[in-house]
């Protein structure tokens, strides 16, 4: 059997097992047509009424979120200065991290050579917010206002301690390159709800921290072993918003239409002569391309937004390439049915100068993040849109480099970090998991990044164990080989 067909069939069988019980299976021809859809690619796949291009039988169950927006804070924001309030640390300023806390765990070679690991308490004030009383630092006054809307997870953890492997791990399920990204899995499984826009869109806005920002890698939104059409599409602020979207200089839309009409005429003749269904798909794809040439500019044109909405996102919303503009775009995509939008905001790697760079980073994201969640809510979209906010690991309680009351730096810390989620079936006003007084070890309810991803998939109606793709002999999945389960406590 065709390898694609196999992957489609696996899901089809699951569906058959749900829907065709007693009928003892479909005929061979019917099975073929299910799998053939996927083998032929895009257009020919058997569509469900609401979406096209996904796998038969997916979603596996009723989703609480139809789409997701992931605000990825790349570089690893300090949970200690933003969310994970540790008042006892105040009196431990410049004291050594107790060996009982480190407990022999490995640390990076950036600080393993330091003669001391002195504790750097946060210099920022924390307060409780909302009825839920969640602790949020003064650096995020607007996000704090969402306290009753979100679930904070304090105990997300990973094994990787360097950026490249860690961000690759959380985004693709493995520390080594080669796997499919979260968004690619979603677009493979769920298809698109708007054929005129990509199912998975990525943005990489600018950032304000002064130090070198950690790199991103196209593999973070790549398709890995999945077919290339599932890779994330970058929505860019420079040049064409989508690569090669614009007609060449000197070619207008009417000329493109004329060219496409004649192209289709030729291609239909080829189809008639040769009979290859792929030719029909190609005709459809060129039409879709033409529609995208209208739908993407429509998406990126904010002129139809009322001033009051623009004001919510802050003044930077009018500058392409800012986090604020990206958030508004994310909302506009949510309205248009884009399945998954991921914004990678860089610059969160505060090895030093927390007091300079961390407020700058928070300044980029605080208001637009609040605006995005609030805007989705007031449009009734938050109920079925999952919003996730977080990075690839956390930061250490001990200081890297010079320590003063006013300024300090923090190294990488994989053993606990905070992310938060909102909307799309996530509990409101919950704080989940506990870390020790040093925000060093998990005390209660750890959430491994595989479990976090399983939970995200679950909200979108996907059983992460059943969204698989046969590659190199394994039924690959986003969440790795070892058994994990979604954290149901996070979902309402």
């Amino acid at each position, binding site marked *: 059997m*065709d*390898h694609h*067909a196999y992957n489609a069939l696996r899901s089809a*069988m*699951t569906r058959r097992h749900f829907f065709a019980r007693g009928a*003892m*299976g479909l005929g061979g021809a019917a099975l073929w047509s299910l799998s053939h859809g996927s083998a*032929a*690619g895009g257009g020919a796949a058997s569509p469900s009424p609401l979406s096209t291009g996904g796998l038969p039988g997916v979603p596996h169950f009723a989703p609480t979120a139809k789409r997701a927006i992931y605000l990825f804070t790349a570089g690893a924001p300090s949970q200690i200065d933003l969310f994970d309030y540790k008042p006892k640390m105040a009196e431990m300023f410049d004291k050594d991290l107790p060996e009982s806390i480190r407990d022999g765990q490995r640390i*990076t070679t950036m600080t393993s050579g330091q003669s001391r690991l002195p504790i750097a308490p946060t210099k920022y004030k924390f307060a409780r917010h909302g009825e839920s009383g969640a602790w949020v630092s003064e650096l995020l006054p607007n996000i704090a206002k969402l306290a009753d809307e979100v679930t904070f997870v304090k105990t997300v953890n990973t094994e990787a*301690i*360097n950026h*490249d492997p860690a961000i690759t791990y959380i985004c693709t399920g493995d520390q*080594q*390159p080669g796997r499919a990204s979260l968004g690619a899995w979603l677009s493979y499984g769920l298809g698109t709800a708007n054929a005129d826009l990509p199912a998975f869109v990525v943005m990489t806005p600018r950032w304000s921290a002064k130090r070198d920002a950690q*790199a*991103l*890698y*196209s*593999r973070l939104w*790549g398709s890995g072993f999945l*077919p*290339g*059409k599932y*890779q994330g*599409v*970058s929505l*860019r602020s420079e*040049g064409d918003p989508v*690569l*090669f*979207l614009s007609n*060449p*200089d*000197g070619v*207008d839309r009417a*000329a493109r239409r*004329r*060219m496409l009409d*004649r*192209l289709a*005429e*030729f291609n239909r003749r*080829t189809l008639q002569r*040769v*009979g*290859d*269904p*792929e030719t029909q798909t*190609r005709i459809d*794809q*060129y039409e879709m*391309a033409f529609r*995208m040439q209208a739908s993407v500019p429509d998406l990126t044109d904010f002129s139809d937004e009322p001033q009051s909405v623009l004001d919510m996102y802050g003044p930077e919303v009018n500058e392409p390439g800012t986090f604020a503009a990206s958030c508004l775009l994310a909302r506009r995509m949510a309205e248009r049915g884009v399945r998954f939008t991921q914004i990678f905001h860089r610059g969160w790697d505060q090895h030093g100068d927390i007091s300079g760079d961390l407020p700058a980073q928070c300044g980029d994201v605080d208001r637009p993040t609040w605006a995005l969640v609030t805007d989705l809510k007031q449009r009734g979209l938050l109920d079925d849109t999952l919003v996730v906010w977080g990075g690839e690991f956390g930061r250490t309680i001990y200081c890297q480099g010079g320590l003063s009351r006013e300024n300090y730096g923090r190294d*990488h810390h994989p053993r606990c970090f905070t992310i938060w989620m909102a909307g799309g079936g996530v509990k409101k006003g919950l704080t989940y998991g506990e870390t020790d007084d040093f925000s060093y070890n998990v005390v209660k309810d750890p959430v491994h990044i595989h479990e976090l991803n399983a939970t995200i998939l679950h909200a979108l109606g996907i059983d992460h*164990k059943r969204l698989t793709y046969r590659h190199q*002999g*394994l*039924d690959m999945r986003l969440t790795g*080989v070892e058994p994990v389960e979604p954290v149901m406590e996070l979902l309402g």
Partner: protein
Amino acid sequence: MLCFTLLDALLSTAAARAAEPAPSFAHEVRPLLSDRCFGCHGPGTQEAALRLDTQEGATEWAILPGDSESSEVIARVSLPEGDDLRMPPEHAGKPPLSREEVDLLRRWIDAGASYGEHWAFAPIEKPSPPDGEAGASEIDRFLNRRIEEKGLAIQPQADKRTLARRLTLDLTGLPPTPAEVEAFVSDDSPEAYERLVDRLLASPRYGEHRARYWLDAVRYGDTHGKHLDNYREIWPYRDWVVAALNANKPYDEFLVEQIAGDLLPDPTREQLIATGFNRCNVSTAEGGVIEQEIYTDNVRDRVDAFGTVVLGLTVGCAKCHDHKYDPLSRKEYYSLFAFFNSIDGGPNDGNVRDHAPAIRVPSDQQQARLEELQAKLGGLRRVYLRDDPRLDAAQRDWEDALVALAGPGVAEALVPTPVLYASEWRTAGPFTDNLKNVVHGAAPAETDAFDPDQTWTLKDGRTVGWEVRPDWVDGRPHAALPGRLASNVVCRTITVDRPTEVEVAVRSDDSLRVKLNGAAVYDHKAQRPLSEGPDRFKMTLKPGDNFLTLRVGNVEGPSGFEFEVLDATVLPTELVDIAGTAPGERSETDALLIRQAFRARTAEFPELEDLRQQVAAVEAEWLAVDRSVPSTLIFRERPEPRVAYDLLRGEYDAQGDPVERRVPAFLPALPGDAPQDRLGLARWAVSEDQPLTARVAVNRYWRQLFGVGLVQTAEDFGSQGSPPSHPELLDWLAADFVRHGWDVKRLFKQLVTTEAYRRSSSAAAEAWRDDPPNRWLARGPRHRLDAEVLRDQALAASGLLVERLGGPPVRPPQPGGLWKAVAYEASDTAEFVADTAPEKVHRRSLYTFYKRTSPPPQFTVLDAPTRESCTIRRERTNTPLQALMLMNDPQYVEAARGLAERVLRWDGPPGGGPTDTARAARMLLLATGRPADETEAESLAEGYRGELRRYRGAPEAAAALVSIGAAPPDPALDTAELAAWTMTANLVLNLDEVVTKN
């Protein structure tokens, strides 16, 4: 008999099934068991103490041979959904067995439940091909039998034009020219096709095209792949692959040289370059990394590549625990690891292009020029240092003055500053890779210990030592340090009789690190020219000898330094000594040294100044050529192998028992007399009784032509791989391939001369429905061209293609900001700067720079991999983004214009003028290789005329369209006509027929 029939009727609902033969364990039953059962009841795990991958295990209680009804396995897989005892259980995440699959198991058990080896691990026997029509090739006989069994309709042979294009694209990755097509069409001889095949196989384009598949497989890229993702220089390996394929190097040698070229006796430079195969893994230099962890990652990546590319096995599945499906234990995995773990270099790539071990690979031209310049330099130096009574007399006066000055208290009395004695400068280098390219030893010690006779063997094979430079006079610039992205260490000994603080002025190109007696004195980390500065700083000399080192780092271009002590008088230690010795008693070295020093310092003789300038100019050119010599990453073994350990749970820091180098037990053993190293492993991989290597190779080549492999999972021949569609054909091909000396071109010729390959790809709707992927090959192959072929085809059709073999990667334009959007600021690939020269922009796609964290979008949009991990098989998708790119990418627009220019410059068909319709037909011919029919040509011409009317009224639009691209439009052509034909060509290059191999 009656009884048997009754039983059979009970077991089978369809009467026809009774006639079906017992299922094949290897090809039908084992794959099913592997997929659904082995995960828990296989080589790795045996839940409920049951293993189904061995006959003993399976028949202990779960399977009763001959009695499916009483077999527990059948009972369990037949249970209804929701039953706790049903297999596979819900938590396994495996789909339940279909009715057909249960039935398959039943029939197999009833027929005796015979076990056998996994088909791909069984020795290759060369089966005899079935009978067939007279003249049909063996391959066709195998294929035709299955087509008949399937009841499929065989399509007729494709027409010659279609065939010419298919074959040319398949063998060279480029389309044929109309003249080539015509020559083939008009050649009526029976050998015409074979002649075409031979000509294409001999084309250098053949190797370029084949190489691309190989480079996907071995994950070749031009950057390190992780974190900074800096430039990595390894393109000479890419060129080696092309050359090896063009030379038709037998596949066994091709593999051996790549896996273990360095271990061959007296390896040639080419054999060392070939070992780049083992260096294509992604690597990192991220701050904070733990060396042991990235060392483990690197080695595992190499092992996985060997497993995937050579053996078609997913050995990586066994890195944390025993393989769940194939009989490979974790310990065996780490025994393979032991072959690849002893590289003579560190795991941290240091963000440098020549992460050791690397060798320099000058081209013949460079080598010749270097030798020529060296000879010239020698000649000039002989003249410069010749015996000359006039000069020697002046030198004696100067020596006398020097001796006098060095007399006790003399200098002190003459000058108010302290007096120092300094030796002549000595220099060593170039050291690359952060001084780590030194074999088994430390870089020059910047300490107080100094051995003038010390030498260092660099990992690129050269040896360097301290070279004395009496011609380097203080206060003058010395732009003579060799190397590119390298450091040189220059040193001298300064002697004083009391603690002395001095101020010095130093310039450097580029960075500078100064140490005195091993202690850091001064650091300057900028890229700068020698004219900048100087940097001034003070240092304190201790009584006696002080050892001063300047480490001068170079990023690119020339490199050098200038040094001067500002507030002291410096007397030259050696020169004073030599001057104090009578000329007749001086050693030859000393005599030369002082002559050199004098002639560098004296300003009396204009002819010397002239010679000095000539020497400097030749030296500068030599250094420039030397710096332009590329290097390439190679694999070289450490003298003492590193110990490898069984890593528990696959964790780098959880070392279990040490392991020996061993091949997996389920495969033939390493011969007793074979060396226990990579060379032994490589030879084992291509030995006669190795069942995998040849099967994997022929299947991969098959796939390149037919679009789908005989084994569909071309990267996995293990239990979980798909069984072959034509097992006997696969074995026949593999055996034949080995028997004929692993001759790749011969194999290609065999494949493309089959009837199956030459069939028409047009077929009725039923044919497409019955066999969508075309596994049975009743019709000819048809699929979308790969990204690189599409681009190259457009360049070829437009006449822009630059056909030049090899060389450094090129950067054709891509949309702005793509690298910047992801890159670390300090990366040397953060900023994409496009090449502009047509001879670079229009090279074949094989030579396009591959930045692995942001590969060329023109490729990835069309399913090309990122080259971060091994890719044996590209998927083929069909998306609107591809349509947008093929219509709008400036490179494709420029190609359309090039095609337009070709038809505009065309003189027209013989006997007729170039009408619009004739030009349209010509355009279609150039793009498809076939003549247009009248309707098509007329339609294109009609479209052209419409666009022409529009462009006549919008000259700016016309001018804008035709000026897109690296080359300027032909000024002799009418802009509106050119624009209108460009739009027409844009259409033609997007035709389904053009983007597809037909």
